[in-house]
């Protein structure tokens, strides 16, 4: 798993390349929380184009980040979800909490 992080104005962009499971969750969580604690970001935007696998550990990571940014009135956005991940989002109700966008451009304009 490789992580690409960058900041665009008030939004932290997170691209996860590879698999999000319990093993990789910790590294992802730590990297994001470090940015949240050390930068004045309000929103998190996940690019899931290159996520090859996700299980319920991913729900935990996303819910945890959602709670953190909610406290600063920020949002968690997401784009390019594959069908397997969408099913997990549907089962867990995550789609009601996260904002889904079509692509990066639409996301950055509207978040």
């Amino acid at each position: 798993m490789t992580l690409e992080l960058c900041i665009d104005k008030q939004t932290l962009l997170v691209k996860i390349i590879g698999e999000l499971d319990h093993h990789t969750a910790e590294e992802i969580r730590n990297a994001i929380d470090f940015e949240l604690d050390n930068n004045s970001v309000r929103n998190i935007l996940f690019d899931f184009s290159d996520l090859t696998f996700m299980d319920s550990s991913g729900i935990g990571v996303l819910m945890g980040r959602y709670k953190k940014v909610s406290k600063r009135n920020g949002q968690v956005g997401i784009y390019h979800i594959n069908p397997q991940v969408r099913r997990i989002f549907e089962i867990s109700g995550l789609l009601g909490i996260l904002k889904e966008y079509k692509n990066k451009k639409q996301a950055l304009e509207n978040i």
Partner: protein
Amino acid sequence: MNFMNEMRIEFLSKSQNEAFARVVVAAFVAQLDPTIEEITDIKTAVSEAVTNAIIHGYEDNMGMVEIKCILIDNKIEIEVIDKGKGIVDIGLAREPLYTSKPELERSGMGFTIMESFMDRVEIISKINKGTTIKMYKELKSIS
């Protein structure tokens, strides 16, 4: 019965073996020529059960996680076994959103995902003896 195959694997309860377990089961099940969606369903369910064995069954201790996999025609039977601490209340454990480890950011959705990605999920557990998760799936693609 036209086709039958069987395997059993054991590995240390280390988190890097979660990905390994998924690869092993996917490679074995691939003999039946499932769809990509079916393989992903199975990998996800196995990932949930193996992760549970590692974080709930063995907590901070090292132990062995075992997976048994039996293929008969288009039917797949997978068992994920740990000899860890066991489940106190199976009914509660199955409930969506219930987790005993919210401090680890567990979502409590593991069993719910196993149930919706497989045809049937059985839980056998004994306190301080361990837990066995039995999962069944019939491949529609080759029935």
